[in-house]
């Protein structure tokens, strides 16, 4: 599978390269369709998940911080955790479950019903036709989803802080802004971009590698979700080490 993954990813890059150098065309319209599929349609779920996480973060930290007599620091903690870690992570988890699995299942079904073979026989490169739009859509939409998710997560923290912890609404916002700097936002978004690439490429590989009919589609969809999750968390550890630990 690693070999198939590498080869598919290289072919996707080669295909994008050919499009950029004008030797073939990028399927812009198809990319937008996929952006709606993987991105816009995931928005409600991502938003809700991040809102809940914001509430949870605020509740969990409130107890601890109250013992130190620093309840107002809930704002610091929520914004800090949300931008650096929780926002990209929760968004990726939702997108893996929603869109990663559906990409694998869709490409796998196309493989099984000989649609991909038919494309090849028509001299249409399935990588350019199917994989590149999905991969690009993932890479573009993940940071977009993440930033909206983070906003809702911060809002969740604010809701709880203002309503249950009786913090001053404006002071909460000021504290939030002071607690983080731009680097936290950038690194979080960079993470989400890398996650998007991982999810897109892994989901497409498992889809294109489906064998043995409907059973194979189910099997590879499960494997795709598991691999995406592990790859995403592994990459999270690596990137966090690079950005915040090693430096």
């Amino acid at each position, binding site marked *: 599978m690693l070999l198939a993954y590498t080869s598919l990813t290289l072919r996707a890059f080669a295909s994008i390269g050919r499009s950029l150098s004008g030797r073939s065309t990028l399927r812009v319209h198809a990319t937008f369709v996929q952006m709606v599929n993987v991105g816009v349609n995931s928005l409600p779920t991502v938003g809700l998940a991040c809102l809940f996480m914001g509430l949870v973060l605020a509740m969990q930290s409130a107890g601890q911080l109250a013992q130190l007599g620093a309840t107002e620091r809930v704002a610091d903690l929520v914004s800090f955790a949300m931008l650096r870690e929780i926002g990209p992570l929760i968004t990726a988890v939702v997108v893996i479950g929603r869109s990663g699995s559906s990409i694998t299942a869709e490409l796998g079904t196309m493989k099984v019903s000989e649609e991909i073979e038919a494309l*090849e*026989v028509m*001299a249409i490169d399935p990588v350019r036709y199917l994989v590149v739009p999905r991969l690009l859509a993932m890479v573009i939409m993940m940071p977009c989803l993440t930033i909206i998710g983070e906003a809702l997560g911060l809002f969740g923290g604010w809701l709880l802080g203002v309503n249950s912890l009786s913090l001053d609404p404006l002071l909460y916002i000021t504290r939030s802004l002071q607690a983080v700097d731009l680097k936290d936002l950038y690194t979080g978004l960079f993470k989400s971009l890398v996650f998007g690439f991982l999810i897109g490429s892994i989901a497409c590989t498992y889809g294109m590698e489906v064998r043995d009919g409907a059973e194979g589609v189910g099997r590879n969809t499960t494997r795709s979700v598991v691999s995406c999750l592990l790859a995403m968390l592994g990459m999270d550890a690596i990137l966090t080490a690079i950005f915040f630990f090693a430096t």
Partner: protein
Amino acid sequence: MSETKSTHALEVRGLVKKFGNRTVLNDISFNLKRGEILVIMGGSGCGKSTLLRHLIGVLKPNEGEIHVLGTDITKLDDDGLAKVRRRFAMMHQFGALLNSLTVGQNVALPLLESGNVSESIADLVVKLKLELVGLTGFEHLKPSEISGGMRKRVGMARALALDPELLFCDEPTSGLDPVMTAVIDQLTLDMVHKLGITAVVVTHDMTSAFRIANKMIMLFEGQIIAQGSPDEIRNNPDPRLQQFIKGEADGPIPLKLSRDDYIKRLLSVD
């Protein structure tokens, strides 16, 4: 790459294909002149589709050469193969339409992807080709909304969209009613006689086979047991061939195990 200006559209030499240790195609050799219709016959599972998938470069043989339109496609890389593939078209056994697209978009796909056809021209060609296969007015339906036989005919329209030099059809008429079968047969004949293309048709419909063939090949358990003109095939004394042509249940084609074998299989422990 040797681009020979041969009169053959297709030349296959000593093709052998094994899946694991099972030989599915064994020493297949034949050739086909331009402008002729070759019919490949044989029972289900004898390797017809597998042979076709070699001719279109989807499968690579273990041994042998396959010259399509003058180029040995077994030695080509992806780009070279794509170049040859632009000159032929395939109608798949079950249509192999893209389920996310409508019927019309499916037929337009090869046109638009070829890069030098505008959308209005493509629209026109789609209407023309759908008309040819008797599906006028079905442009806006999805493949899931039409019958299996109709999907096949859309597959035929899509295969004809780019006016190929060489057309491969995998069981184009199985599952069609007799009238539609005749329409598709006539269409194949017209394409060959009026436009001068070459066709390879897999079928086990004998009426249809003798109606269109210039040349016939009978496959049996992965081997060619007879090839020649329709007359030669009709008069071939091979009992397996005669049984197949006449469609009889009794004969040398082993359908059932012998009594002893049957009992042995039943009692054997794998």
